[in-house]
């Protein structure tokens, strides 16, 4: 009897441990899946260094009325800049995707149906296996297995978050630097070239008033496109900052992920990133 009570206690402990680890796994999953979604918005910016180089090179020919069979644009450095950007982007994306998959609640929802079926339908000589017993043991095994595997993956998650914090902080910060200072900066040059091009056109006094009006309309239209792109970049860069802060909190509290404040913090960061994604998506329209 004592042994049965002891076994029940162990079972209960494992179930509670399993259930409580589910809660923290869920919060890690919420944060990492939102970050994963947020980082992928980079592809929606739809502007690269090479694209910028080609556009500017063609614009240079347009302003000079130069028509060649080939554009003759030299964009090697811009293509290299894209390669570096993509390397960093893919590394960050791969990491958050991994965290999302590892903390996904469905990962350890094992299916015992095949085993149940083979045990209840099989003919084992004189041995008759009761279906109710099979169901009960299968349910218990499922709970115990989930509890133990959840403890295992929680341990692994803590280990990975700990090892990844320093490099992911560097990557997120450098990625933000590239996007907000360099890619956005290229658009500042585009803005200045548009200003110079149209200002020269108006100052040259070779256009009629109507043509001047059309040129002014074109200028502001193009300026608006640049501004929208820059606003998208700003929104995206803001989400990178939230991801970095969220991961830092996750790292600092990796051993007390059950704490209410930590859960609230992670929910806060996930919701911040979500808000920024919504803001970003509004700019796309």
């Amino acid at each position, binding site marked *: 009897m004592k042994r049965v009570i002891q076994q029940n206690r162990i079972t209960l402990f494992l179930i509670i441990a399993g259930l409580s680890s589910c809660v923290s796994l869920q919060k890690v999953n919420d944060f990492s899946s939102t970050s994963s979604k947020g980082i992928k918005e980079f592809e929606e910016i739809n502007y690269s260094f090479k694209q*910028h180089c080609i556009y500017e090179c063609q614009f240079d020919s347009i302003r000079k009325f130069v028509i060649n069979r080939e554009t003759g644009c030299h964009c090697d*450095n811009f293509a290299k*800049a894209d390669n570096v950007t993509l390397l960093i982007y893919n*590394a960050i994306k791969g990491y958050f995707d991994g965290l999302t998959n590892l903390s996904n609640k469905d*990962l350890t929802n094992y299916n015992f149906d095949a085993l149940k079926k083979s045990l209840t339908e099989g003919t084992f000589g004189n041995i008759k296996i009761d279906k109710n017993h099979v169901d009960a043991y299968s349910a218990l095994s499922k709970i115990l297995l989930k509890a133990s595997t959840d403890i295992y993956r929680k341990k692994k998650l803590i280990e*990975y978050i700990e*090892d990844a914090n320093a*490099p992911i902080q560097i990557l997120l910060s450098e990625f933000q630097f590239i996007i907000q200072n*360099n890619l956005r900066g290229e658009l500042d*040059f585009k803005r200045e070239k548009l200003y110079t091009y149209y200002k020269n056109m108006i100052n040259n006094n070779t256009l009629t008033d109507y043509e001047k009006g059309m040129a002014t309309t074109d200028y502001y239209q193009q300026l608006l496109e640049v501004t929208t792109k820059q606003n998208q970049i700003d929104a995206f860069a803001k989400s990178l900052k939230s991801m970095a802060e969220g991961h830092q909190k996750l790292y600092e509290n990796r051993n007390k992920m059950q704490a209410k404040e930590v859960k609230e913090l992670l929910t806060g960061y996930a919701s911040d990133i979500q808000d920024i994604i919504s803001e970003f998506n509004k700019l796309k329209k």
Partner: protein
Amino acid sequence: MATLTAKQANDLGKDFLALAQAIGDFRYDNWNTLSKEDNQRLSDFQWSILNYGEDILALSVILVMDDVEASLTKINTISSKIKGTIQVLKNIQKGIDVAAAIVTLGAAIISKSPKVIADSIDGLVKSWDS
């Protein structure tokens, strides 16, 4: 000679932009007093500075690579480890399925039916390969 950092290159790019803007403002402020040739020369100068500035910003990105190489390797290693752990957890399901197939095979052997035994072996192989 000291090498340029990504941040320094970015600052330099911004300085080029400010310089080009200053030249542009000077041209427009003195539009009527500058000779056509001088205006054109300044305009070409301004455009070249803008082009160099864009190149410098691209260079700044390339220089970032020096600062992130070690972090990239670390994160990619961690991501591979995460994938490995996920695979271990997925293999548990495979273990359960293989166990079910073995039980089915055991029952088939006891039943002494060659057809059922053959089917069960087939089922076991399939769950092992899945």
